[in-house]
């Protein structure tokens, strides 16, 4: 992430460099048309295809992994296009530079600030080229609607509409301004003449793309803000929806792998004989870090794999056990790190405060696994000098860059075909895609036949890209009124972009220091990334401060938030809808937490108790969400529900642990995720605001753990300072 951010900055400021790329633009547009246009179809404004049959197909530069973005983005484009919604479809944009996601790049650089109108044309060109330059086609960071949609699909739709209207104006020899477009038809109110989009597309495609198309005001929206049936749903109810794992290609063979159980270790030796003797097996291939078996069917490949006894090295500097891990965390917390944020003088304020006004705590979070339902898989074929990948990668262009690096081929000889993923949650993204590193040598060895690699669930569990196991030490001094005057925190951090530590509250003196921490265990981006641990730390500790000050945890928070702010309104709404302050049955408590993530504010109130068996029970979750505006309210609700359930599951029970440096958990029997019976009542309240749109796929998750831990404190008086909660409770029982 850091590398990308840097490159973007460099490209964005080096205007002179851009001119060179700019002159390629025409050939890019021609290439884009050749990649997606079929007979009778015409690509307008680079991203919208209209057929003679009036079917409008929006190219979407994100994968479908369950978040409904194809429908939402098509709605945003169709709204401005004034299309007939019943004729709108989507296609996954090819994983090629011609479809680099310029909108996402722009959103990142602008840090989600509104793009000033005067800069619009200029930034668009600069960022298009920047995105192409750095291979950006990522699904992640809850960016699809807020960046690709808001800064991209709306403008593309409006531009295409402008081209269609202009084509009609030329055909009828009338001024374009007097024409109207609605439901896929351009009409001339003065003469009553009309033409369907499909009739105008060919002429429209010859026109230049308008530089400043007019966007609708929200009050003019007719499609955005409604909840039509998502495109992908019918096929997900009859078994016909095809994921990467379902791909079938002529002559395809199947691969299973086993990689060194301690991450980073290498294959020393393996007797390939036992597998080679088995039915269906075609090849046994030793790899740098493991061994692969290729067979006629995947079941045969995996059965043969189980017959092998590979030996692996044990040389690395590994963390052996949980105790070892905690010791290293504590040691790391003793170092200075680097300043993440500083204001006032927190250390001086803490030094002068009397001991009874100081609160201090250490919190820990475990490694977490994505455990998406579709096991990791990818298919590759090297034939006629071209390497083709079929996979549900979140970052198609990043995957392409990785394949170029691994194969030594030129970019023109590597093709990435994006497929839908059965969940991902941050797992299938190029820097973490170790499975692609295994697949490429197998595909090269089996050339010219295509090879589908599926990780067995056991292999998938023990070679994840986990949410890192991290810890923090935090101290605060309370002033006369009980509110904190100083907050001093050191936290361990993985080397990814981190904006999650920011305190939402007005505290005069702050010192937040970040300490890089890594072990041999492979980590990556887990849903909401660093927000998952920081929300737990910040919002649990604020709760501790409220109780130390003998104040109500809701009022305590509210009093540190600016009046009239989005965050204060979100917090107040959650409290009000959850009837904060009203009596609950004995033994049941309420907890509250507030967090901002990817431009969206979420506050949650959770009611919980301990069951007769001593285990935690969640009774009710109330969420208030301000993400600016909503495109498809039902999908938005679904993302929040799903985020809350994944958050509850992780907070209560999920953990990846170590033994002799290996991952202990191997499948769902020992990685206990939420089921239907665990799911409590969830109520979601959306607050609309005029703020720039925020993300929705992730922001509902981070406040869950602290709200639940705070609820259990209210219920039992036991403070939870480590996750999962089930372990913390067992420890203090």
């Amino acid at each position: 992430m850091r590398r990308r951010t840097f490159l973007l900055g460099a490209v964005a400021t080096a205007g002179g460099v851009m001119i060179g790329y700019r002159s390629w633009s025409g050939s890019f547009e021609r290439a884009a048309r050749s990649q997606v246009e079929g007979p009778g179809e015409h690509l307008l404004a680079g991203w919208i295809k209209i057929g003679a049959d009036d079917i409008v197909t929006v190219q979407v530069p994100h994968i479908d992994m369950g978040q409904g973005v194809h429908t939402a983005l098509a709605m945003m484009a169709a709204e401005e296009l004034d299309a007939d919604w019943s004729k709108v479809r989507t296609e996954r944009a090819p994983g090629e530079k011609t479809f680099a996601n310029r909108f996402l790049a722009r959103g990142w650089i602008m840090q989600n600030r509104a793009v000033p109108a005067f800069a619009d044309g200029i930034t668009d060109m600069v960022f298009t080229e920047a995105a192409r330059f750095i291979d950006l086609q990522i699904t992640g960071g809850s960016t699809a609607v807020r960046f690709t949609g808001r800064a991209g699909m709306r403008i593309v739709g409006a531009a295409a509409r402008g081209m269609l209207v202009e084509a009609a104006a030329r055909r009828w020899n009338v001024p374009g301004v007097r024409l109207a477009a609605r439901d896929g038809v351009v009409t001339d109110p003065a003469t009553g003449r009309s033409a369907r989009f499909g009739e105008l597309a060919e002429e429209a495609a010859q026109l230049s793309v308008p530089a400043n198309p007019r966007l609708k005001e929200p009050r003019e929206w007719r499609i955005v803000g409604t909840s039509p049936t998502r495109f992908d749903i019918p096929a997900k109810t009859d078994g016909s929806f095809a994921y990467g794992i379902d791909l079938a290609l002529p002559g395809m063979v199947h691969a299973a792998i086993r990689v060194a159980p301690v991450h980073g270790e290498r294959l020393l030796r393996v007797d390939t004989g036992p597998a080679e003797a088995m039915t269906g097996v075609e090849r046994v291939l030793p790899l740098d870090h493991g061994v692969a078996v290729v067979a006629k069917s995947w079941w045969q490949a995996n059965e043969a794999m189980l017959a092998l006894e590979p030996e692996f090295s044990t040389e690395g500097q590994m963390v052996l056990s949980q105790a070892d891990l905690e010791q290293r965390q504590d040691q790391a917390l003793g170092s200075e790190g680097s300043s993440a944020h500083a204001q006032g003088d927190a250390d001086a304020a803490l030094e002068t405060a009397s001991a009874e006004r100081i609160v201090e705590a250490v919190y820990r979070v475990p490694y977490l696994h994505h455990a998406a339902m579709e096991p990791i898989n990818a298919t590759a074929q090297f034939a006629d000098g071209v390497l083709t990948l079929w996979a549900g990668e979140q970052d198609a262009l990043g995957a392409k860059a990785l394949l170029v690096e691994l194969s030594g081929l030129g970019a023109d000889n590597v093709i990435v075909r994006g497929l839908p993923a059965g969940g991902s949650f941050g797992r299938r993204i190029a820097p973490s895609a170790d499975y692609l590193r295994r697949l490429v040598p197998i595909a090269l060895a089996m050339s010219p036949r295509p090879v589908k690699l599926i990780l067995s669930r056991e292999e998938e569990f023990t070679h994840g890209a986990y949410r890192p196991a991290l810890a923090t030490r935090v101290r605060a001094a309370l002033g006369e009124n009980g509110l904190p005057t100083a907050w001093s925190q050191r936290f361990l951090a993985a080397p990814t972009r981190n904006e999650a530590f920011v305190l939402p509250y007005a505290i005069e003196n702050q010192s937040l220091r970040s300490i890089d921490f890594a072990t041999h265990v492979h980590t990556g981006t887990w849903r909401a990334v660093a927000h998952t641990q920081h929300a737990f730390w910040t919002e649990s500790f604020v709760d501790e401060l409220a109780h130390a000050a003998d104040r109500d945890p809701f009022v305590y928070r509210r009093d540190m938030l600016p009046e009239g702010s989005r965050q204060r309104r979100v917090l107040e709404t959650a409290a009000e809808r959850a009837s904060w302050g009203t009596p609950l049955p004995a033994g049941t408590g309420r907890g509250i937490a507030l967090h901002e993530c990817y431009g969206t504010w979420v506050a949650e109130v959770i009611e919980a108790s301990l069951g007769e068996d001593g285990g935690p029970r969640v009774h009710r979750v109330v969420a208030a969400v301000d993400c600016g505006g909503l495109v498809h309210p039902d999908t938005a609700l679904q993302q929040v529900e799903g985020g809350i359930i994944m958050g509850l599951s992780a907070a209560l029970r999920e953990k990846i642990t170590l033994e002799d440096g290996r991952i202990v958990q191997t499948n769902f029997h020992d990685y206990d995720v939420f089921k239907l019976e665990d799911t409590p009542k969830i109520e979601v309240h959306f607050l609309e605001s005029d703020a720039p749109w925020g993300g929705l796929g992730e922001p509902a998750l981070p406040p869950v753990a602290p709200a639940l831990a705070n609820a259990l404190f209210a219920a039992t008086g036991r403070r939870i300072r480590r996750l999962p909660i089930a372990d913390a409770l067992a420890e203090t029982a």
Partner: protein
Amino acid sequence: MASMTLRVNGEAIDVELDPAKPLLWVLREELGLTGTKYGCGVAACGACTIHLDGRAVRSCILPADAAEGAEITTIEAVSGGAAGVAGQLAQQAWIEMQVPQCGYCQSGMIMAVAALLGENPNPSDDEIDAAVTNICRCGTYPRIRKAVHAVARHMETAS
């Protein structure tokens, strides 16, 4: 290798295979019925749920020869199998309530729900919890519960 006849979605199919091969992989690899999903391989997640004589069974640990002689129904034909009415109504409710997110677990979910409703057309929440123990990582559970109750209401008015 062994020859056997499997009855799948109302059709008798002669296959030649390793009798230990789990039915899941026979369906996916030999018969091209990819709607039934591999999730865990140890009957823990339910993504591979099919009907064996109308009852929900996890096919990833069921050897092919154990299914010989039984009526096998997969998601592709759930609206026409033994629990056909419940299956078809479940599919409709899944669309109306926009249940799926990534959708990968939903074949198994619908199979589990159709089998439950075939036996018990008006299950309580506890009965739903006990019968539908499949895993959905996207967290579609609240909608699944609502959809099951909606199907139960339909079945009541239809009967």
